[in-house]
């Protein structure tokens, strides 16, 4: 739930990047962190294992500056993707205003992606969100890999709601900002 503080003239929104392990959620945040104007971003926080797998979440606060007198801030989070962290994902989703579902386009990851989006919808219902109306965008990541499934096929099985979707190669920055723009605008429309 977005927080609008009239006294301090601030608006805060929470965006969560969701998806299977190694699909590129953290990579999206890392790309934004290293490429965006430093005055826009705060410190990036990562709670990861020794092997750099996300254990709890990554966190990147962005400050869009003052818009019509309101300092507008977006807080970007990732969830840990590995199956065993299901409860942790639910904990991080708490209070989210919008979600980016990152898909690993590789054929061998197809089934995992299908399970993960079903889990996301279930988790949103558990949190009392109306899934048909909740800001959600899909990112087809790893489009550069040889075993990438055609987007039309991914779209048919993973995007039955016809949500906005974007092709990406997050490691190279491709599609990262298009996705971020879409979810940010989606959230602002719903405020």
């Amino acid at each position, binding site marked *: 739930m977005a927080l609008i503080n009239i006294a301090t003239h601030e608006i805060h929104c929470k965006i969560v990047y969701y998806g299977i392990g190694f699909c590129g959620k953290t990579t999206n945040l890392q790309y934004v962190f290293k490429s965006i104007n430093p005055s826009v971003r705060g410190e990036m926080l990562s709670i990861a294992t020794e092997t750099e797998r996300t254990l709890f979440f990554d966190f990147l606060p962005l400050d869009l500056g003052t818009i*019509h007198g309101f300092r507008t801030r977006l807080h970007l989070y990732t969830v840990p993707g590995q199956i065993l962290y299901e*409860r942790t994902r639910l904990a991080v989703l*708490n209070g989210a205003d919008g979600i980016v579902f990152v898909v690993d386009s590789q054929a061998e990851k197809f089934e995992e992606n299908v399970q993960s989006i079903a889990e996301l919808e279930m988790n949103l219902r558990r949190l009392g969100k109306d899934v048909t109306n909740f800001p959600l965008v899909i990112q087809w990541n790893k489009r550069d890999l040889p075993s990438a499934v055609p987007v039309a096929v991914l779209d048919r099985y993973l995007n039955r709601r016809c949500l906005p979707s974007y092709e990406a190669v997050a490691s190279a920055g491709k599609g990262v900002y298009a996705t971020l723009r879409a979810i940010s605008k989606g959230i602002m429309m719903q405020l």
Partner: protein
Amino acid sequence: MEQLTNLIISDDELDSITHVLQKLMNDTSATSVMLLDKSGQVISTQGMSTKRNATSLGALLAGAFSSSRHIAELLGEKDFRTIFQQGVHENIYTTMVEEQWLLVIVFDKLTHIGLVKVLSKKTSEELVNTLERVRADTNHQKSSVLNIQFRSSVEDTIDLLFRD
């Protein structure tokens, strides 16, 4: 009732929150007191020790709290409504304000945990009333902030800042 997608805190309500937090801080001699939304956003922070890292602290404390509630569920416990983190110098006591906010008290060895528990419960009850007013008032306040001009400017800003 329409599901709220945001909470709008007015000047008056923030004044009242600040007053309540300040009083709790003085009465317990805590080093800092914070009020967070369950999403990790900071509503108000009083005292020096949390000011500098308030944003990161908000995200981490809310994450830890949310995680502990799931632990409760797995243990068949109805709920963990508080967390106590004990350090060598600083301690943190976190408690829920309904299902929406978290009241966080940071204190050192000069303050007894019993005092923090009792007074934070009282403060939490006062904040429940504030939360109810904020919820009731949010829809009225919405149009004054989130008007067409704001929405159009925010879209322009997003296009400007988030470009390849």
